[in-house]
């Protein structure tokens, strides 16, 4: 067992874990006050649901021995059967399978959470929970198997996807688009102002994502070596370049360098360098970053032209950024790999994920919608889904009224029971 590599992967797993709450803040700041908590929860719940599913069958479907054709893993490792502390991964990367499984678990958690931004403000919390349960099972686990399991068909095709341009970002972006087409637009889309309620929260989220992404990208080497270092460096460089690309485009088109643009550009760069960073040099990383920043900045406007309410631009940033990185590495890959042949492979990889993920995501969204109903009621949506599904509000704006009375000061209570009795009931039935 390689202790240095094991340490690196375990730390990287913790870094990637932080990306999901980071994403929650990134998205949470972009919605209106009345849906902030729901937005945070849509990401955060993935840490609960997918962690459990991963142990039950997710790891096995993804990294179990191939059942044929490079399409899916078998069920040998259900409940992590057959794996113990002494079980090591093969080859030079001799690290405990537990460390590898934990690291990959964080990817499986993050990917469905990425889709949540597209469905902001308008879906039932139970429907979302059911949807991501089905989605990781039928979409993420198979696609991750295609890309990263040694017998996966895209891996055998030699598609370059070092840390998840196809399996994570294109997958989540196109899946989100399919779900949006089923769920529909927010009430007031294109009419009501839907300004981000807290750009500082967005910036905090972007910073946590950037930090965690070093684990996501460099950790994917599964070894503390030169490739990991190259990846880490390129992650930084591409992200900086993408922020500049987005801001310059925005300044020319809209007249200002916005905070939201800086945060969004950084995320677009992180997305685009994810598949590519281990196979390009630093100058290639700058090019990928600048292109991703400028193109994504343009792409987020498409939803208004085409009329689909991808509320927080999951398609415009993750799908478009993922495609840019996946294709550009086909051209820019060093050591004689880059070229038309490789570009073709990359296009096949991206195209396969787009087609499969769109179709299955759409079917799953329809299934959820036809059974338990995907959307919140109109009344819940207008009042804000925080109250409807979580019985909470994110902020207490007024010291007068609104808050419940304090219950910790018993007033001449004969017995202690009365004063400490919990609040009887909420006024409204909590309907999830």
């Amino acid at each position, binding site marked *: 067992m390689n202790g240095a590599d094991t340490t690196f992967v375990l730390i990287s797993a913790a870094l990637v874990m932080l990306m999901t709450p980071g994403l929650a803040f990134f998205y949470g700041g972009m919605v209106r006050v009345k849906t902030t908590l729901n937005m945070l929860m849509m990401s955060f719940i993935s840490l609960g649901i997918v962690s459990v599913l991963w142990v039950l069958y997710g790891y096995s479907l993804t990294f179990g021995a191939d059942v044929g054709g490079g399409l899916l893993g078998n069920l040998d490792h259900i409940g992590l059967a057959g794996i113990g502390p002494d079980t090591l991964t093969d080859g030079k990367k001799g690290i405990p399978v537990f460390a590898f499984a934990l690291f990959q678990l964080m990817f499986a958690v993050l990917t469905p959470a990425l889709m949540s931004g597209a469905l902001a403000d308008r879906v039932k919390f139970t429907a979302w929970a059911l949807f991501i349960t089905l989605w990781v099972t039928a979409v993420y686990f198979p696609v991750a198997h295609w890309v990263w399991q040694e017998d996966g068909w895209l891996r055998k095709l030699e598609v370059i996807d070092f840390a998840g341009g196809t399996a994570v970002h294109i997958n989540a972006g196109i899946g989100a688009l399919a779900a949006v087409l089923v769920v529909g637009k927010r009430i007031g889309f294109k009419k009501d102002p839907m*300004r981000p309620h807290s750009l500082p929260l967005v910036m905090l989220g972007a910073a946590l994502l950037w930090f965690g992404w070093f684990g996501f990208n460099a950790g994917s080497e599964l070894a503390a070596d030169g490739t990991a270092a190259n990846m880490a460096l390129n992650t930084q460089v591409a992200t900086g370049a993408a922020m500049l690309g987005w801001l310059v485009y925005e300044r020319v088109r809209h007249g200002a360098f916005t905070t939201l643009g800086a945060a969004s550009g950084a995320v677009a760069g992180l997305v685009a360098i994810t598949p590519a960073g281990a196979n390009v040099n630093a100058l290639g990383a700058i090019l990928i970053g600048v292109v991703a920043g400028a193109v994504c900045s343009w792409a987020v406007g498409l939803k208004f032209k085409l009329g689909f309410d991808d509320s927080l631009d999951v398609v415009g940033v993750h799908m478009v950024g993922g495609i840019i990185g996946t294709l550009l590495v086909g051209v820019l890959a060093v050591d004689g790999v880059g070229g038309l042949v490789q570009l073709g492979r990359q296009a096949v990889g991206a195209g396969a994920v787009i087609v499969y993920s769109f179709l299955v995501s759409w079917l799953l969204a329809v299934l959820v919608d036809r059974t338990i109903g995907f959307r919140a009621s109109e009344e819940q949506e207008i009042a804000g889904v925080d109250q409807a599904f979580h019985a909470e509000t994110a902020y207490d704006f007024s010291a007068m009224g609104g808050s419940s009375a304090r219950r910790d000061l018993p007033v001449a209570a004969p017995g202690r029971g009365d004063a400490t009795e919990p609040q009887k009931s909420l006024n409204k039935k909590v309907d999830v």
Partner: protein
Amino acid sequence: MKLITAVVKPHRLDEIKEALQAFGVQGLTVTEASGYGRQRGHTEVYRGAEYTVDLVPKIRIEVLVEDADAEQLIEVVVKAARTGQIGDGKVWSVPVETVVRVRTDERGPDAL
């Protein structure tokens, strides 16, 4: 008695407070307000989507005075609030029937 209400630019609050104190005003109430008059709002851009923000932040200052002081006090406020730019706000007065000091039950001008 009169109630003088001034809706003015937030950054003039300190000058207005000092001018009112110099004039001898004992108390006032300040609230945050928003609205528009001839000065309209501004445009904000979020990921390329432009929003027009109609309402401009202002502060509302309210002062109770005796009838005899009202005109002079309005002048004091106007002078302190003025920047000469659009959006300086407005000051107006309305008659007040009754004022009661809650602690002592004093009424009318004694309660000011």
